């Protein structure tokens, strides 16, 4: 057990979106529980993979970590400081430490801004240095992500998707952040370019000792990149473990279903496959008890009445399922 506090701690965070009707006399029809009681830690220099189907709350979680959304309950601490209470100088200091790369390289660069300016933006905004110093840093960053320094003068439309994603990464790296949120960083790229991008991300982590929060629906990416993996279903964590341990020993039926859905070399081929039937239930009206019980092949009577808590089944490996009690 380490005594060093984690870089980022997510503490019992909930995010509920009110669904309202009417303009003048607003009625609340219900709340969408996008994220419901989620906790995890990210340690400095490591990669945490956050996996789940679309709509499971992984993007909402990452937007809360980026301080783009406020949690309804719970708090998020960066180096012990609650980030949603930050103001003024402290908020600037936080903005320097946490950066992001998003999924869609076509939407994440301002089409009217030279890419060099985009990369330099966080340095300019946070008064990092004078013009010459910033220009030098931009040059260094372009080289680091495998682009040519003179490309700083070009506009985004002159770049391919993979190159744009490299520019986005360079912009995220500019302020030497401690954490980069990677929201599906490779899923919009051609398969041939994905590996390059993932290797680039790993090289940069080795050089700069930056932590990643890798949001993905793709297990192969997570396996390649993440030290630790968190699996979410309908706003809840169902399983979390060190990536190696998780891929050795999948426990939760939902995680197993995810594994069955992709062609991953499984160590245990006898293990039966689970094919999920039906749709993900609406987060507006999530199932009672365990949220997965409507689609779970091992459903038991108690699953629809009580909600299983996350329990440690082996060191560092926790599962929220009554099968393991």
């Amino acid at each position, binding site marked *: 057990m380490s005594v060093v506090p984690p870089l980022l701690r997510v503490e019992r965070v909930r995010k509920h979106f009110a669904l309202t009707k009417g303009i003048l006399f607003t009625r609340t029809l219900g709340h969408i529980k996008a994220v419901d009681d989620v906790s995890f830690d990210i340690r400095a220099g490591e990669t945490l993979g956050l996996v789940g189907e679309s709509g499971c709350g992984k993007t909402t979680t990452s937007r809360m970590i980026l301080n783009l959304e406020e949690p309804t309950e719970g708090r998020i601490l960066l180096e012990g400081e609650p980030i949603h209470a930050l103001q003024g100088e402290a908020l600037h200091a936080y903005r320097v430490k946490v950066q*992001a790369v*998003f999924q869609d390289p076509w939407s994440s660069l301002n*089409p009217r801004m030279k890419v060099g300016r985009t990369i330099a933006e966080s340095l300019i905004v946070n008064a990092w240095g004078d013009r010459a110093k910033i220009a030098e840093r931009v040059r260094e960053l372009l080289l680091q992500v495998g682009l040519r320094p003179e490309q700083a003068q070009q506009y985004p439309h002159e770049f391919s998707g993979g190159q744009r994603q490299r520019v986005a990464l360079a*912009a995220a790296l500019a302020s030497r952040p401690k954490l980069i949120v990677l929201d599906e960083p490779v899923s919009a790229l051609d398969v041939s370019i994905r590996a390059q991008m993932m290797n680039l991300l790993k090289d940069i982590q080795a050089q700069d000792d930056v932590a990643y929060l890798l949001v993905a629906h793709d297990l192969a990416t997570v396996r390649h990149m993440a030290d630790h993996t968190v699996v979410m279903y309908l706003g809840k964590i169902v399983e979390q473990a060190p990536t190696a341990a998780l891929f050795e020993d999948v426990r939760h039926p939902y995680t197993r279903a995810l594994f069955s859905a992709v062609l991953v070399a499984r160590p245990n081929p006898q293990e039966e496959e689970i094919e999920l039937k039906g749709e993900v239930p609406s987060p507006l009206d999530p199932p009672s008890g365990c949220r997965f019980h409507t689609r779970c092949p091992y459903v038991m009577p108690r699953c629809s009445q009580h909600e299983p808590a996350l329990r440690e089944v082996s060191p560092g490996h926790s599962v929220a399922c009554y099968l393991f009690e």
Partner: protein
Amino acid sequence: MALADPPPRISLWRLVWPARVPGGFRRTSRVPWIPIAIISAIVVMALFAPLLAPYSPIDQTLRDKLLPPAWLDGGSEKYLLGTDAFGRDILSRLIYGARVSLLVALLALTAGGGIGLGVGIVAGYVGGAVDSVLMRLVDAAFTFPAILFALLLAVTMGQGLGTLVIAITLLLWASFARVIRGEVLSLRQRDFVALARVRGCSALRIMLTHILPNVLNTFMVLVTLNIGVVIIAEATLSFLGAGIPPPTPTWGLMISEGRGRLTDAWWVALIPGIAITLMVLSVNLFGDWLRDRLDPRLRQL
């Protein structure tokens, strides 16, 4: 080898009114040269009016009053487009009148367009209560009887360029604000805006460096499409007597002065009427073309 087809003949008319393609949309590729030529001619007229006009636009020569254009019976070579009831040269008045029309268009579009641009960006980006309040103001501006208000303004403030520009600005800003706001609403959903926040940009900085440059295309299209509206508004208000006071020549005023003599001296009103029609038609065709080139999403406007 078969001979190549002869190149299709393109009539000049097609330049002004491009052919329809099967999809029902007008073909957009052709540069509207004739409208551009007409607009340029009018701009040159306005800029160099003192050099181009053969006579003073104000001095009266009562001896020569109501002469028809030179090519008609009784017309004089001295006055190419004839004279009005005070014996003033219509060509000279037309040339000087272009100055007023363009000056009013420039000022009113800068003021009205600028206000609309600012309101649209703030309402769209800031959202919430600010958006609601600003958009209710826009709704209110749309229900306002602009002409009536202009007449009221002319009575209270007196006629003049300032009154005219204020009246037209009030007529224009709301439509700019509404379109720009819609554009901003879709822009702010784009990832680069969220990333700018993550990098620590203030709201003001995001609006100026990320939103504004991305709505300028739309803004330029709106400006061009509204030049016609402004020229008509100026002419209407001058015609009603709420514009520039005589004897300064404006196209609307010239029509107003010729109105009573349509039966015996029709050219006094018709010639400035043709000038307005040509100018407005030209800027609208040019604006249509620019819109199709820069921002096809605005096609319904």
